[in-house]
Each structure stands twice: as C-alpha cells, then as structure tokens.
C-alpha cells in the first residue's frame, strides 16, 4: 500500500501525481470464499476489514450492487456521537466513537473527524428533565456529556435565537464535546482501501439476485456477476434489508422510510458545532467546505425511492429559521433522500438469523453512520466466532419475541 502522507504528496506532485496506485483493486469475483459480506457500505466494508485484521481471515468478498459507499454511507449528515440513554446503546456507540478517534491513522486515510461538539436543545420543562436524565445516565457510562445553560449555548452558537418569545424557546441543552462530524465518503473509501490491502475482494456492480438455501444454511448467492458460494454470509444492506431477508426466507421488523437532508451553498465559517433538536426535528452542522448541512425527520410512509415529501422539508426549515432567523436568505443547493431501516425500538439488529451460517446487521434507522466502525467490529466478531460480541448481544433479532426492546426513540433528533 502506498502510504498517504504530506511527504508522499509532495514527491508525487513533481510528476503530476502519476505515482498513485488504485485505492482498491477491481477484482473479478471468485466462485467461493470463506466469508461473503453483502453490502459495500461503510458497515460492510468495516466488517470485512475487522474480520481480516482481528481474526486473520482474508478470503473474503464484499459484494456491492452499485458503487461502494453509495447507500446511506454516502447520503447522511455525517454526525458522530455516543450520547445514548440506555447502557446497551451507549457501550456500542462509544466503542464506535473510540474507533473513529483513531481511524484516520489506522486506515492511513484522513476521514476528517472533527470533534467539534454535538449539542442537543431542550425547548420545554419536560425536555429539560429528559436532558438531565440522559446526561446523568451517559456520564455513568463513562461518556462525556454536560448540561448547558442557554447562555452557554449562546457562547457556542452566537447566532442562535434565545428569545423567550420564540415558538421554540431554548431552556437549555446538553453537549457531548467528543461528538462531531466526519467525511462520510472517506470512511467508506478508507475502509475499502485498508480491507483491500489485507487481501479482501471488493466487488462492485454485483447485485444479489437470489439466495440459495438448504437444511437451514445458505449455500450460495446468485448474483449479476455469477454464483458465489461461501462458508458464512453477512448481510449489511441498509435500506434493502427486508428485500434480502425475503430472498433468504425470513422476515424482519423493519420499515424502509425516506429520510431527507439538504445542503446550502458554501458559506464562510459561521457555525462551529453540531446542533440537534428533537422537538423540531432538525439537525445542523457546517461542512468543512462551508455548506450548511440540515437533516430532517423521516417521511412516515414506506418508500424505496430516495426522495421524500416537501412538507417535511418545509417544517424543518421553519423550525431552523425559528432557531436561527438570520439564515433566512441562505439558499438550498441540493436536497436528497435516502432509505433508512426503521426498527420498532429505533435500535439496530446485529446477530444471528434463522439460517445458521447467515448473520445480519441492519436497522440502524437514522443513525448508522456514527456506528460504522463499531458495527463492523462487533459484526466481524459475530461472523468469525458464530457468537454475538458481548456488546452486540442485546441487539439480537430475537429481542423482539422476548420483548427485550432497547427503546431509543428519544436518541435521535428524529421521532420515528
């Protein structure tokens, strides 16, 4: 692997950067592998990377129906944080955040993790109580979190409207200072390059058409690039989990719904933190390029169309301008939708399936990006050992039958 460094960049600049190799190979699929991961998003690529790195398994293929990182990895608002209420979630997301903190160096790919702080706003007495509850619980889990007064919020976001006459007055909030944003594409590409370097075949434009099973195990996958067999299979296909599960013959507690986001035209830096508000369903941050990135809530109907309804955007915009009236004359440059897997308890599903050699990782809802390395890490354990990682065990598929849900509805700025 040609190392990425300032020195190398300088040296290669002298011959017009002709010396850079492919970031990852484009191999043709073999007929069989030890492990096949379906889904070349961040989670799938991370899973393959950690399988190779932590368990020494290299005979792995990652199958991607389009281009890697092209699903929710490439269409999210890039927020990273671990301030979750329940212990189970907190531990999982904190593992992920810790991995993120070292990821640029580990992958030798700058993912531009910017730990600028994630603020959650409270607009009513009951939301302030919720903030207290969360901060108290999060701190007990050893994760940084603080309650903020309105004045503290103002000092972090000078343009915020603190007027008590606001329809959504700001009574306070919380901050996780280690939270922030990262460059989403870089996470996918960095994992791909590192996984490829460990011998993993990343196979793009390879769609799974059918799943061949017998005696409770998956035998092979029929794909657009031929039949591919493996000893074990992992499905990590956010947005299409139900479709693939149906091909394998089981059902999931998932609804696919559109989640919209948009960016403004680039502006000089004016917004230095990540801001979320659950009541008004909006989250904001400013990208390094200067675009203001705004995320909305989900559209409340099933869709695989990667677009949502204008009414959701209109509501999000009126809430945003209520918080930041001076943004009124900014302009939306691009808006898009993505398909998210919504679970009944707003927590993911990681673990075994009714088929003995098939493992599934899905249901991350609106918040999968922040979990990318952690999700790959525990899922790799699951696939390699056949048993769930202890941090992932609570997120098994059978929690629904047992009634052991992990209700994180309040965790995102989005109420599902």
């Amino acid at each position, binding site marked *: 692997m040609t190392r*990425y*460094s*300032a020195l190398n*960049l*300088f040296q290669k*600049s002298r011959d017009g*950067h*002709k010396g*850079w*190799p*492919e*970031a990852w190979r484009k191999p043709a699929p073999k007929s069989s592998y030890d492990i096949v991961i379906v889904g070349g998003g961040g989670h799938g690529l991370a899973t393959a990377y950690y399988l190779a790195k932590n368990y020494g398994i290299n005979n792995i293929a990652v199958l991607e129906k*389009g281009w890697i990182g092209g699903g929710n990895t490439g269409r999210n608002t890039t927020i990273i944080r671990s301030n979750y209420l329940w212990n189970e979630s907190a531990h999982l997301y904190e593992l992920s955040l810790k991995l993120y903190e070292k990821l*640029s*160096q580990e992958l030798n*790919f*700058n993912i*531009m993790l910017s730990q600028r702080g994630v603020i959650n706003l409270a607009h*009513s007495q*009951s939301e302030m*109580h*919720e903030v*207290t*509850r969360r*901060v*108290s*619980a999060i*701190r*007990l889990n050893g994760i940084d979190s*603080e309650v903020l007064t309105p004045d503290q919020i103002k000092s972090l976001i000078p343009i915020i409207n603190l007027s008590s*006459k606001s*329809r959504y007055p700001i009574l306070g909030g919380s901050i996780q200072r280690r939270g922030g944003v990262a460059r989403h594409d870089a996470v996918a590409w*960095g994992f791909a390059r590192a996984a490829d370097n460990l011998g993993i075949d990343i196979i793009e434009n390879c769609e799974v058409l059918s799943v061949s099973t017998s005696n409770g195990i998956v035998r092979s996958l029929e794909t657009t690039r031929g039949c591919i067999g493996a000893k074990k299979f992992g499905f990590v296909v956010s947005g299409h989990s139900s479709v693939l599960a149906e091909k394998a013959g089981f059902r999931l507690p998932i609804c696919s719904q559109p989640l919209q986001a948009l960016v403004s*035209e*680039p*502006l*000089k*830096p*004016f917004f230095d933190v990540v801001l979320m508000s659950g009541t008004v369903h909006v989250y904001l941050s400013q990208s*390094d*390029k200067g675009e203001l990135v705004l995320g909305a809530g989900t559209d409340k109907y099933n869709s695989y169309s*990667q677009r949502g309804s*204008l009414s959701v955007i*209109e509501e999000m915009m*009126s809430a*945003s*301008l*209520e918080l930041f*009236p*001076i*943004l*009124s*004359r900014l*302009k*939306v*440059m691009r808006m898009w939708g993505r398909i998210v897997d919504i679970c009944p308890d707003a927590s993911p599903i990681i673990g075994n399936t009714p088929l003995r050699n098939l493992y599934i990782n899905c249901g991350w809802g609106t918040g999968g990006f922040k979990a990318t390395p952690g999700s790959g890490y525990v899922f790799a354990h699951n696939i390699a050992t056949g048993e769930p990682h202890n941090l992932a065990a609570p997120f098994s598929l059978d929690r629904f039958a*047992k*009634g052991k849900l992990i*209700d994180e509805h*309040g965790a995102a700025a989005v109420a599902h």
Partner: protein
Amino acid sequence: MKKQPFRVEGLGDIERNRPIMFTFNGKTYTGFKGDTLASALLANGVILVGRSFKYHRPRGIFGVGVDDPNALVQIGVHGRSTPNERATTTEIFEGLIAKSVNVWPSLRYDILAINNSFSSMFPAGFYYKTFMWPASFWPIYEYFIRKAAGLGTVPKFEDPDTYEKKYVHYDLLIVGGGIAGLVAAHVSAKAGNRVILADERANLGGSKFNSEVTINNKPVKKWVSDIESELESIGDCMVLKRTTAVIHSDHNFVVLREKIIKPNNHSSHTMISQRLWKVRAKSVIYATGALERPMVFQNNDLPGVMLGSAVTDLIHRYGVCPGKNVAIAGNNASIYTLAEDLKACGANIVALSDSRKKSDNNENLAFDSEFPVFMGQAPICAFGKKKIRSVSFGPVNIDTAISQNKDDKKIDCDLLCLSGGYDPNLNLIAQAGGSVSFDTEVSSFNCQSIPKDIFLIGAAAGNFDLQDTISKSLNIVKKIIKQNGTSVFPDIVYQTKGSKSLNAVSPVWYVQSKKSNNKQFVDLHNDVTVSDIDLSVREGYKSIEHFKRYTTSGMGPDQGKIANVNALGILSKKIDINPQSIGTTRFRPPYTPITFGALAGRDLGDLAEPIRITALNVWHQESKAVFENVGQWKRPWYYPKNEETMEAAVNRECKAVRKSVGIFDASTLGKIELVGPDAGELLNRIYINRFDDLKVGSCRYGIICGDDGMVIDDGVTSRLEDKRWLMTTTTGNASKVFHWIDEWLQCEWPELDVFLTSVSSHWSTITIAGSNARNVLLELAGDVDVSNSSFPHHTWKIIKIFGVVARVFRVSFTGELSYEINIPSRYAHSLWESIISIGERYDITPFGTESLHTLRAEKGYIVVGHETDGSVTPDDIGFGWMMRKRKDFIGHRSLSRESIIGEKRPQLVGLLPETYIPEGAQVLSDEISGSDKQSIGHVTSSYNSPSLGIPIALGLIQGGRSLIGSNIRIIGPSNSMSVNAKIVSHCFYDPNGDRLNV
C-alpha cells in the same frame, strides 16, 4: 453619466432612458433598467468579477443565466445581505450594492491566489492523504481549511422580508417560456385548458428573444409580446415571469419559485420578496431548452472566455458586446450565427475555429475572406493573466485536440466565445423520474423514457429545429387537450422564418496537454481540471458517483450545469467506456438554489406551530400567570404574587389547596365521547381494566397500553348514560389517543357499534380542589345534593349552574376533595370568575401546573411522560393488579413475554433524598448492583414538598418494590450533584386516602 464602453447602440431590450446606479466592489457604475448585474458590469468593461473556489484564479462572467459558475456575489446590506447571488440572474436596481465573495483583501489582489502557484500540491482529494500527523493537529488544520473554504457570508441581521406560498391546481403547467413553451401555452389556453406558464427570466422568448427570427411574419419580439398579452387576457391562464421550476415531486407536484421585484428593492419596509408556488397539474410540459457547454483546454477559465450563447444573449437582450477583438471556437453550426451577430455590433472577429472537418452548409466559406477560419481545429491554450490576451488553436484528432506547444500560433483577442455543443436541460424531468440516455448525434443526454402525464418539447427534447419543434409541440398539446376532455383543437398556424437549426455536434472533449500539471478546467466553479480526472481514474474512482465525490466535479452551487457532460465525456475517454454505460449522477432538486425563507414561508414566530389556549386564557394573562409550553398549549405554570419566586408561589399555591381550596384550569385534558351500544366493550379492549360494568353516574380510572404492552396514556372515564361515555386523556396525548382509538375501531373492530367524538374544546374544565371545595360547590349547586354520601368520590352529577348544564365529576389528582366542573367553553370565563368571587371567603387560590404536579407527586400519582417513557408496563408503575386476567385487551399478550415478567423490571417507588435532586438523576447502589457505577434506575419526579417540608421524589428502580427501606445514592448530571436517599413507598401524603373521601 459615464459612457459604457461595451454597450452597443440600437440593440437589446433595455430602457436606455432609465439609467440605474449601482455599486460593485465599492465602485459605482451605471446600467439601464432591464440590465442584470452581469450585463451592466460587462457593458462597463468589468471583466474580472470573482475568484475560483480552490485556486482563487481570476474569473469573469462565463454564462448569462443560471448556468454561470463564476459570478457569485454578496448583494445588499444589513438584513438584506444575501450571499452567493448570481450576477447573471440579479436584475439591477437603484442603489444595489454587490461585492465579490471569497476574496481577501480584494478581488484584484487576493492573498489566497497563492494556492494557484502551489496547485500541484492540491490535486483532487489531497486532503484524504495528508493532515494526519500529528493526529492531534487536525483541529488546527481544519480551522485553516474552513477559513479558506466557503463563499459568501451569513447576514448579521434578521431578514426584513417575508415569503409567501401559494397552492394552485391547473390542467397544464408549462415550464419555459421560449417559443416552444409559448406555442404550447397559447394553443392549450385557446382550447380552454387551465394553463400556467413559468419562465425564469424577466422576459419571455427564451433563446430566440429579440433575435432575427420572425413568426407569422412578425419579428419574434413582437410576436412574443402579442402572445403574452393574449395569454394574460384569458382568465384561466397564468403567466409567471422570473419564476423558476425548482422541484418536481410525486404526482405532478411542481414547486415554482417566483422572485418579486419591487421598485424600492432596498427600502427598509417589510416586503414580499419571493413566492413559492405549489402547483398540482394534470399534465406538465417541460420546455426548458438546452444549456451550452464550454470546451476544455488550457486556461479556459480566464476572464474574457465566455459561452457563445451568452454573448448572443448579451447582444440581443442587453445590447452588450463584451469584446472588441473576438475569437470564436466551437463544434457546431451556432458559431456562424454568433459570428454574424458579432459582426452586426461592429466587433472585429479575429479567428474562428470549427472542430468539424466540414460545416453543415459550408457556412465557413462565407467568412473565409473576412477572418481566419480554422476547420478541424480547436483552441489549445488561452493566454493572459487577469483577462484573456490571446489564444492558440490546433488540430483535432477524433474527439480530442492535441497541444502542439511549439507551433502554437497566438492570436490576440479580448473575448473568446465557446460552443462545445448543447445539453438538453433535463434536471426537472429526471427529478420526475424520467430516464436519460446518451445520444451520440448531439454528444449529450436525451430523455429516454418519460413518466406519465409529463412531456418534453423543444431543445429540451433534443430538437434544435424551430419549425419542427413547433409542429411536435402542437402534437403533444393535442394529446393533452384530448386527455383533458376538450375535443376542439384551435386551428392556429405558426410559421417561422430566419431560424437556423443545429445539426450534429462533433465533440472535442478536451485538449491533450503535454504539461503534467495542466489547467484545463472542467468544472470552473470547483476548480476541477482534466488532471484531476486523470488522478481520479488512476486511483480507481471511476464510477461516476465516486468520480464526482472524489473530484467534487458538479458539486458547486451551479451543480455542474455546464460541467457535467464534459466531465463525463472526458472520463469516458480516459476509462474507455462509453458515456451511456457510465451514466449520470442523480439529478437532485432544486434545479436552482431556493432561499430558506421561501421554504419556511409564513410559518415563523407564532405561526411556526399553532398556539393553543383555553377559554380562560384572558383571565390567566390578566392575573399575570407565568405560562409553560405543553405541546402546543400555553398553560399557566404558576401565578406569582408580588414578585414572588416560583418556589414561593408554588409553596403558597400548594398550601392553599391542602388547607382550604384552590382552582385550576384543566381544560386542556383530552375529552372523547363514546356513544353506542358497544362503547363499554370498546373501553374494555382499550383499557387494561374492565369498564362495561361501570354504573351510570360513576367514574373509573384506567390505563391504556399499546399492543406492545407499554403504557401510553391514562385517565378517568365516566358513564354518562347507558350508551354514552366520556373518556378523558392526558393533555399531550389527547389527539393521539383519539385517532388511535379511531384506528382500532375502524380497522380492527368495525363490528362494534360506537361513535367517537372529540369534545376537548367544547367543554372547559375547572377544577376546585381542597377541603373547602364542597363549600364552594354548594353555592353553585342550587338544590342538588352534593354531600359525600350522595355525591361520593368517583361519581359525577349534572348540576345546573346559573342555568347552564355542567357536568361535575368528583375525581382528584391532588389527593384532596376535588370537583372537575365541565361547562361549555363559552361560559367558562364567567363561571371561573364567579367561583373566584364565591371562594374569596375561603381564600380560593388559583394554582398552575407546577403545583398540580407537586401535589400529585406527594400522593404518588403518576404522570404519563414522567413516570413512563414508552418502555414501562402497568405493573412497573404499580397497576399490575388492575389488569384483566383472562380477557384480551390491547397489549395484554405482550405483557406475558419473557422479559416483561422478569424480576429486574423497573418499579415505581418513592424516594426521600437528603436534598432536592433534579428529575432524571440516576440511582446507584453498591449493595444492590455490586457496582458504584451501575445505574439501577432514575428519578422520574422530584419536588420540595410544601406539605411535608422535605424533598420528595418518585423513581423507577429495578426491583424497587422489594427494596423499600434501602439506602441508595442519587447522581445528577454533574460530578457535584450526588445525594443519599432512602427508598420508600410512592405515596407520601395521606396514604389511606382519607382526604379524598370526606
């Protein structure tokens, strides 16, 4: 008035008798009414208008419409300061102030232009490869990266303008007011269809505006204005100018953004600045034309290099010819028309290159004697520093030109016009779900499949012949009209003359350069060059989406309108895959950027969300209540007297209730009437406890679960008559519960004969609570017996109060003798005032939500949303006994699942902390959990109890009921917040309920 050196006499459609003064980068210029900022600047010879995003290279106006990637300016001051406006789409007005964005200290001397010298260090994606050491330095690197990035600045003051929204329904929406769009509008409107026509520019006519073309022997300008007035005279036809279609959503829902131009555009008064039209149309016709694309060669970004169509437009619309010595380069017939136009305004044409071997009709021969015409050639390199000085040409080999370096012959010029072919403008049709395919004939994308009820005409359909366009448009309109039920097709002929059609285009994707670090710009806005494409390919970012994201090509404010097809063509050459197989990136809305304010419209301030107030609001306000937002409601939180603190007020209010009597506005409670023979059965299924055995005149408390077994609401339901019941819900869940029951009734149990009506706001609820409540009621009750024996707890009575029928319920949420008087809302205010005056002798005290919650916490009563959070079962909060055992109710089956019957469930208990601790604090116990870090529960409610004089709390604690008597520790949200506490029963006050039953 200063002379405008590039203004051409006699041409254009500007009002030369109406000069307008404006300021650009601190200097004052004069333009004319009808000018855009771009045309006025060019008329004044201002060539340098901005700097590029990454290398800060000097840039000039390149296009004249929404496609221009360069001329982004900050316009206006104070609250009207607007970042990233296009000079090309901004109409000038008196006093307009504009300045270039992203330059420092000035446009001419921009410090970051140094980036250009070190550009070899900043290839595509350089940031992924560096800034990693030392790891802790990233925030510093990032600080400087952010500072360098971005364009305009956020205004410092609130926007004084407002934005409107309007919904309309039409038979036909036509987007684009060029000839094709106008013909379609004219015919369909004449046929009686309801038609709306939108065009983004200030004038209709599109690319033929003010040209030499004639229609039905009228000059095109005259024809356009005649058609326009005719359309405006038809009642059901609406023509919107300065209106851009930005979003095409499902089922022909199209969003148009109209810019509203007022004469006093800089007045300090509030004005409507934009209007968002939400159009639902049976059919939509896109006549969105085509966008010209540039050619890619060394220094093709120099100021003075422009699109040919832009120059044509400048001449015809604004009478501006932005150069004196003009070179022309292209690959299609449009360059010859341009040469004629330029000649007509007296420009000296220095050279013309046509990359084709042969022109369509040997047009080149006509010019051969006047200036050098290079057939089979393309520009190789432009020269100049802050503007173009000369250009060299070289031969084209298949579809790339090859740089010759040595033999390059420089030809001096001050303007270079480019035409690299035309791209049908397909953004909106692609948003609508149309698919596109690459057409080698025009070397661009055409629409391949079009969704139902959407149509494409004119250049947008790849049709560059005007007469043919008209006849095809007529056919399409015929079809639409028929579909809309009109059979008579108006017999109108549109005969055009003088229009030249555009035939095949031979692409010249780029000029091969021998230099390693070339400056052949593909995306001018984001400074993406051919060598960036090379690098992207080399590193394997070959899929069009990877390519876009890696190089950032097409990701600027113009979204690559003129860049994307060239980028694709070059990528296709580099990886040797045809453009069709590579495909496009996804077209996303909006077509052009939309203002945040326009999307929010009037939904700001008090209109951001409905404000709900009770019928007693005026009294609360007059009594100086402090209000609390509860959902959409404004509820009195407490009533401070004489500058009391909240704590003092709550203390006083609570004591008054416990000692004598208080009065409370409970009108926000949800109230649902259930009428019908099966209402009792419905309630049995909705509540966890039985209801059909409730006697008329009685009330019962019940809990509602979702089918997952988790508590979602609670409240008291009363039997009003045999078949009429009144259910109450919590304030926050009133409408949710109502619709939820409606869903069960309609979808699951339609056999139940019950009718639901929400009566929440029909009835106001005034609660009087305290030992003197009966004494107050006595004075209202007339001869109704309200004694304890005749009107016991959990019963209700009709009492005529001052002749008005009121329903009085004896229920209590404070633990005191309490009556909830329900009265039609219009009488609520006067009843409240009467009670206040009757109660004077008992010192009746109004109390707010904070006191209510304090009083109920003393009694250990739960509040849904405090003691429950969607993961709490009835048994967790101590109501396991209430559940029916053998009968089904919603949630019943879920409550027998494995994890629900385990011992570690959170259970509601009382807590006696040493000092007050905030709600939400976590409960720890070494003894119980074996760890001083492991939370065993949390505080759900916490108050300083006025009745007991000590802090009390409620909490949900794992296995809590068996831990009563244990000592625990409570940890708040900061290290300093830690108190010891004891677990006790959840009822702190009057555990036997004696005070309820007096």
